[in-house]
């Protein structure tokens, strides 16, 4: 599984999407590189996207996001992405994780949602080797991501999820 593949060869880039939560539009994008000769897929990047906005862009940040979800109650104000907050729904104070997007929208994640998302995360990456990801993490730019998203149809308006 972990043969060295030529980084300069024109391998196919496949972006695959796992929806972690439909209501909050939280998605996990997995960037695969398919070896043109052996037709094997290698995972090259994992990214969290919320409502059309990239929250993380590399494996370290994505792992941090996942751990903040998993810790939920044990996290504090030092969290980078998901800040624990409390709000009142029908005169009852509830705690949740909140994240503010660049357009000002605030998204709250409940405890059960966080648990479900962590479960989905574990399921979606079963069977893939992370050795190549850690060894040769591909440096991406805005242009390469745009190309990859366009090739896989993510910029199309009526793309079925």
């Amino acid at each position, binding site marked *: 599984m972990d043969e060295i593949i030529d980084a300069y060869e024109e391998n196919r880039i496949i972006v695959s999407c796992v929806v972690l939560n439909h209501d909050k539009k939280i998605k996990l994008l997995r960037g695969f590189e398919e070896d043109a000769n052996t037709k094997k897929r290698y995972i090259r990047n994992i990214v969290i996207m919320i409502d059309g*906005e*990239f929250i993380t*862009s590399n494996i370290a940040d994505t792992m941090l996001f996942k751990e903040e979800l998993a810790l939920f109650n044990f996290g504090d104000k030092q969290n980078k992405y998901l800040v624990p907050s409390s709000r009142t729904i029908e005169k009852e104070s509830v705690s949740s994780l909140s994240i503010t997007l660049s357009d000002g929208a605030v998204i709250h994640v409940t405890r059960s949602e966080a648990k479900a998302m962590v479960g989905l995360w574990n399921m979606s990456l079963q069977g893939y080797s992370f050795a190549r990801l850690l060894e040769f993490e591909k*440096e*991406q*730019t*805005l242009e390469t991501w*745009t190309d990859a998203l366009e090739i896989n149809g993510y*910029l199309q308006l009526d*793309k079925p999820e």
Partner: protein
Amino acid sequence: MYFLLIGAVIITVLIVYIYKKDVGDDEEKKLEDSAKDEIIEPEKPKEIMLYFNTDSVRISFYSLHLFKCYGAKNIYKKIVVEKLYIDEPFHTSLVKLLQIYDKTESWIKSKNTKEIRLKIRKKNGKFEEGVSFKIHSLSDTAFDFLDNIFEYLNEKKYREKDQKNILLAVLVWKIDCVKELKYLCPENLLDAELRECLGGRILKEYSSNHDVFKILRMIEDKYEHIQFIQKIYDNTLRWQHEYPYVDKAEKDNESFSINHLPDKSMKRLIHLDDICVY
């Protein structure tokens, strides 16, 4: 005695009359004879020498190398070379507008696209932000649009003057998309005002530019008999190629000057068959 005198006078008169009559008959006969001669021998027609101009006809055109895009060359050949719309204020105004669309790298956002906001951490730890979506190339769209409009005008047989005004109006209509020219006008203008400002600067030599602006206003006000322009535009946009694009916040806007657009002095006498060579 009196009778004798009167008789002598009468006799002399008669003699004179008879003599004169004889002379008159002779002249008539002569005339008739001469007329007969003329009929028999008509004059030979004069030989006319016609000199045909065998030199090649040369007309002053702009060189096709002025344009980079195939679309612009094609439009110039169709409108100016084939139709011979070479009368002066129109010819230069059209070439100026074509050159603006030829030079520009502006785009039109596709109606069929999602926006994805990207925020990527580089290896040096700094973040790079941008929005990616799909676009159409403005120059390709404009030339295809103009081509379709010109075909429509030919089919419906508009008058030559109207055809010219509509062609210029159509080009000025989309000039607010050319981002490189926005520096010429004050900021915070509406699209319609920006069009009039830029159009007025480019078409200042075109004598009937008030007709062009009248057509522009008719397009904006959605007049019924000019609706074909909007329909053809929508139809053109539907078949345009889409390109992925990243809009970075910190990108500097390029601009180009309108003072270096083609001038009448750049025209050359070119033979019609040689238009593709020059």
